[in-house]
């Protein structure tokens, strides 16, 4: 069953002098011809389809349009053209460490954030202790949020977010947070959610993670789609080759060739030892 369909999705972004500008400044700049707005396509003609239970990894270097695409799928942005169809409840976890209220206590922030993520009051009452103990913040419940360290903040953000129970989960680099034990713990938690049959879209800078977890992969480069395929391994190989050569493949044959080049230069055993080290 198809749950996510993106058909020729194009998203345009505008930047330039328009941000944080005042009306007076706007008028002056308009009059002197100094007002410059640049439009650019963050995504152009992106198409893919996901079935229930699919794990999609989106790869591409900075500015490829990955985060913008996620925002469009989660309904925060609107594509200029094309069509996005989503069946089921979405939970989008995008850089969730921000957006807490510094003045409120930890406890109040848990309820506020929970409400923002669509949890019910009853659910939060039940899960509150679990959230606090998972974040290891038992002694800090009545502290105001600004008194926490940044590590504590991201631990709390993760602990609230990881209770989501959506049909479609969208993750932007939030597979794990913190350091040491917590990193392991959070990664295990996220993996258990992902493997619970949820359809998942994942943006990750770690190509190994995509290799390991995803059964489909979407490669974006400067807003355009290089390829969408279910041959995760081959595409990831080609992508790693691309990171070295910086030469963008134009068709499937070139991708195949790049993947072969990559494997020649990195024989399997070296690769597996690399994975072990990690």
């Amino acid at each position, binding site marked *: 069953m198809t749950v996510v369909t993106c058909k020729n999705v194009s998203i345009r*972004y505008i930047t330039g002098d328009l941000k944080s500008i005042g*009306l007076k400044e706007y008028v002056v700049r308009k009059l002197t011809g100094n007002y410059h707005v640049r439009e650019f396509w963050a995504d152009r003609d992106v198409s893919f389809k996901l079935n229930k239970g699919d794990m999609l990894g989106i790869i591409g270097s900075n500015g490829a349009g990955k985060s913008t695409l996620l*925002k469009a799928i989660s309904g925060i*942005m609107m594509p200029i053209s094309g069509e996005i169809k989503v069946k089921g409840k979405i939970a989008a976890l995008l850089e969730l460490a921000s957006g807490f209220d510094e003045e409120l206590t930890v406890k109040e922030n848990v309820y506020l954030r929970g*409400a923002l993520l669509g949890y019910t009051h009853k659910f939060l009452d039940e899960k509150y202790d679990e959230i606090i103990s998972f974040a290891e913040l038992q002694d800090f419940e009545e502290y105001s949020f600004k008194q926490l360290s940044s590590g504590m903040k991201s631990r709390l953000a993760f602990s609230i977010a990881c209770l989501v129970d959506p049909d479609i989960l969208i993750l932007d680099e939030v597979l794990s947070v913190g350091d040491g034990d917590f990193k392991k713990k959070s990664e295990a938690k996220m993996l258990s959610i992902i493997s619970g049959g949820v359809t998942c879209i994942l943006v990750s800078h770690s190509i190994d993670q995509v290799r390991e977890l995803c059964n489909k992969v979407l490669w974006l480069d400067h807003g355009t789609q290089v390829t969408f395929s279910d041959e995760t391994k081959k595409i990831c190989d080609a992508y790693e080759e691309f990171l070295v050569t910086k030469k963008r493949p134009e068709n499937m044959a070139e991708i195949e060739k790049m993947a072969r080049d990559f494997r020649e230069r990195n024989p399997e055993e070296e690769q597996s030892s690399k994975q072990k080290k990690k």
Partner: protein
Amino acid sequence: MGQTYIIGKYVYDRILLLMEKVLNRVKEYSFLFEQLVSRDFKRKYKRTVLGMLWSVLSPLLMLFVMRMIFINFFGSSTPHYTIYLFAGIIVMSFYREATKTGMTSLVQNTAIVTKINVPKYLFIFSRNVSAFVNFALTLGVFFVYCLVDRISFSPSFLMLIFPSITLTLMNIGIGMILSCLYIFFRDMTYLYDVFLTLLNYLSAVFYTIDRFAIGIQQLFLLNPVYAHIRYFRMIVIENAIPGIGYHGLLLLYALIFLAIGFYMYKRYNYQFIYYL
């Protein structure tokens, strides 16, 4: 006959469907809304009784000072001048607080609005709730003062519910318009402060308008804030209920600003993200 029935049934079904949609939405977001309101209260009053008291005290202080100065000019010619002034101050304060805090509500929640897909108007509504509660508190003090000033309560005081509702709706609408503008132009807060000062002088808060020609007195009603202040004064001081037309005027103001607010919000909803 059959056709009218079909059309009627169709309209009826559509209305039911719409109501169901609205109800579902209210239900879906009621917990979030409750949380947002409670956050605004905590931030505003800093969890102190004094904080709550202060928000009532500040219009009272204003009343005290203005009364001291202006009673010499208008006191002898205006019956119940203190109440006259008080009515102006509470309506103006409510309008000022609701629209000013509504204006900044979206920008101050940038981190949420750009990361989580929730209806943005909830942030504006929640600011309006806390401004309304403040208004209700000062209104309580106002009624106490009415007793002190030997104004007897009559059943027509219940009519004050009407302008309170239209004023609240208008505040929401204007808050939506301003919050849009503030996203695009960050000096809107300063410009709006200037506008508020002008509006304060134009709303006959401390002076009476009977020295103007009749035509100019009518022009004052073009100012929606003055129209609301006038309603309060008519009920409390003149013990008269405004006519149907007057009610229509207040309702019209509320609906016009709400419509513009919702229109701008709908139109720019997906463009905000570029500016935040």
